[in-house]
């Protein structure tokens, strides 16, 4: 457990000092919000409101991919990743540390992006902010668990960052579906539908187990 906390601390301190990752993710997702605005057929309020969940989660997915790639690109500097591979003990804890750090940084970006969407799209989240946060947390847990596992693999292949979205997006279709459904009904003020919560919890559980056990095998040569 200590290893996971050490890695979480290391990632957050590194990010706090460099701040490059959070800023890049934030600018990217807010920029996506703006671009979507121009991409929409018309700017009528109800069009914006109905499309917001889908657009919001699309921006989140791509910001997540940016952050996950960066999270392991940092480990490649000075081959620090081999330093992690050399550590004794189960590597699942290393996975937990990295996933937790990615989760915290992504949640920060998601919160600020939600504000940007609220501002640009005139959508009022405040009434159901708590429920929305819950849905976002649940989905982000799934994104960060399988995302951390796949990023650790993708960044060490010859395709580097290009491979991550190709590996990750098919795996996130169920998560996206659950997240968008949850967001839709939360924004409609009906609270979080049980079906979305159940789906997301099942996926999170599966991906956390696969990633925790699988990480053992991907740090080796």
């Amino acid at each position, binding site marked *: 457990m200590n*290893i996971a906390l*050490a890695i979480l601390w290391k990632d957050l301190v590194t990010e706090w000092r460099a701040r490059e990752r959070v800023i890049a993710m934030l600018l990217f997702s807010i920029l996506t919000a703006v671009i979507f605005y121009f991409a929409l057929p018309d700017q009528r309020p109800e069009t914006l409101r109905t499309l917001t969940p889908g657009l919001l989660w699309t921006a989140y997915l791509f910001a997540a991919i940016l952050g996950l790639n960066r999270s392991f690109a940092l480990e490649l500097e000075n*081959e620090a990743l*081999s*330093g992690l591979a*050399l550590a004794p003990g189960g590597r699942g804890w290393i996975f937990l540390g990295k996933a937790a750090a990615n989760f915290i940084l992504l949640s920060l970006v998601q919160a600020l992006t939600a504000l940007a969407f609220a501002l640009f799209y005139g959508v009022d989240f405040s009434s159901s902010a708590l429920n929305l946060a819950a849905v976002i947390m649940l989905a982000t847990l799934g994104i960060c668990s399988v995302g951390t596992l796949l990023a650790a693999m993708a960044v060490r292949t010859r395709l580097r960052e290009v491979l991550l979205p190709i590996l990750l997006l098919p795996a996130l279709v169920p998560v996206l579906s659950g997240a968008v459904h949850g967001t839709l009904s939360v924004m409609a003020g009906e609270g979080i539908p049980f079906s979305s919560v159940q789906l997301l919890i099942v996926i999170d559980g599966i991906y956390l187990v696969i990633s925790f056990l699988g990480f053992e095998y991907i740090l*080796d040569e």
Partner: protein
Amino acid sequence: MTSPLLRLKDIEKAYGPITALRNISLDLDHGETISLLGPNGAGKSTLLRIVAGLAAPTRGTLEIQGTAHDRRAIGYLGHATLLYPELTARENLIFAARLHGVPKPARRADQLLEEEDLSPVAQRRAGGFSRGMAQRLAIARARVHKPSLLLLDEPFTGLDVPAISRLSQRLIELRNAGQSWLLVTHEVERAAMLADTALIVLRGQVAERLTGGELTPQNLSEIYAKALDLQS
């Protein structure tokens, strides 16, 4: 008899079609130091990565203290420093200590900074270190969990003269303190002066073995030159 610190038997390593190592066998006892001398591409680094547990041999067995591989017994210093540029020297060591489950990581970090006399730069970020200082910090990191066997892969490359002599001095001190290490280098001088035994590695195989009295820089460079002529 107690099992050796490190035992390699018929180690083979093939990357797809390329065979990097062909049946290498090697024993290293507690406190013994060995240097592996050979041209680039002879497979020395591959062998070291296998001993470190970073790579698995295609065939052959590897035992550390009589049992299968145990990463707690190994300290590895490769070409790369494994350090995080944003973290300070002290933070890097504390992180490495916690990673290896070392009790009281802060105290261990300070002790290592003392030993490698890096205390004055403890609070500076590792990213700003010169190659020589980064190397000293990397050695401290490799020794954080008091490994029984220290692996050094071409530690002298890229160092200026004072740094080379300091590092050589350091390795001799460690040896005298009973720390066994396995040094990979392509410099004859280092290979002969620092270790108890020198092995010449050519094209993935141990070609020659010199130890004790016969291991002098003069003797080693002659044999090494002859072995290189045979090979080409």
